[in-house]
C-alpha cells in the first residue's frame, strides 16, 4: 500500500523533509508507523508528537492504501 506522510514543525526540521510517499507492506497501525518514522530522529520528546491519519488523531487506526498521514508536534496556535 502507498501512504503519503507529511511532516510539520520540529518533526519536519529533524526529518529534513516535509513530505514523502512510502510503499508499505503488511498490516500497520498509525502508532507503529509513527515509531518507524521518528526512529533515529533527533526529537527530545517523541511522546509529544501526534499522528493524524486522514486528519484523524486516533493512533490505533490500521493504515490502508492511499492514506494521508501527518506527524504533528505540539500545537502552538493563537
Amino acid at each position: 500500500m502507498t501512504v503519503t506522510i507529511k511532516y510539520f514543525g520540529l518533526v519536519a526540521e529533524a526529518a529534513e523533509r516535509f513530505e514523502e510517499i512510502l510503499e508499505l507492506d503488511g498490516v500497520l497501525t498509525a502508532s507503529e508507523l509513527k515509531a518507524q518514522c521518528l526512529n533515529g530522529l533527533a526529537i527530545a520528546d517523541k511522546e509529544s508528537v501526534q499522528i493524524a491519519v486522514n486528519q484523524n488523531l486516533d493512533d490505533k487506526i490500521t493504515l490502508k492504501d492511499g492514506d494521508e498521514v501527518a506527524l504533528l508536534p505540539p500545537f502552538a496556535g493563537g
Partner: protein
Amino acid sequence: MDKKKPKKVFVQGAIPPEKIANSVANHQSKTEIGAHSIFLGQIRADEVEGKTVTAIDYTAYEEMAENVFHEIREAAFAKFDITCAHIYHSLGRVNVGELCLFVFTSSAHRKIAIEATNFFVEEIKAKVPVFGKEIFEDETHQWKVNK
C-alpha cells in the same frame, strides 16, 4: 464533516489593527447585537536564556486546521447563542508586537459573547495543528509549545 464550505481563517503575515475596526464596522447594521467580545494574540518579546524572541514563523497542517476551525465554529454556534463569530490566524512570519490571532464574537448579551470568545481561544490553542518557530535576534530558533 459539515458540507458548508469552511470560512478562510488563515492570513499571510500579521493581522493589521485596521482589520478589527473593519470587522466591528461591518456589524453595526446588525441591530440585534448588544455586545462584541474580541481577543487578540500579540507576539511577545520573550526572553529565553538571555536571547529575545523577535518573531514567530507560523506553519500549519492547513487542510486539517481549516477543518478544525470549522468544527470549533460549529460547536460554538451549538453551545452559545451568538450572532456571529470570526477567527483569523496568521501564517508565516509575525514580528514582535504584531497580531497573530483575532477572535471576534457578537451576541445580544455580554456574557454569551465573552464566554464564546473564551471558548474559541481555548479550543484553538488546544486543537488546531499550527506550529510556531520562535526566532531570536541571532536567527537561532526554538519551537513554541502551547501551555
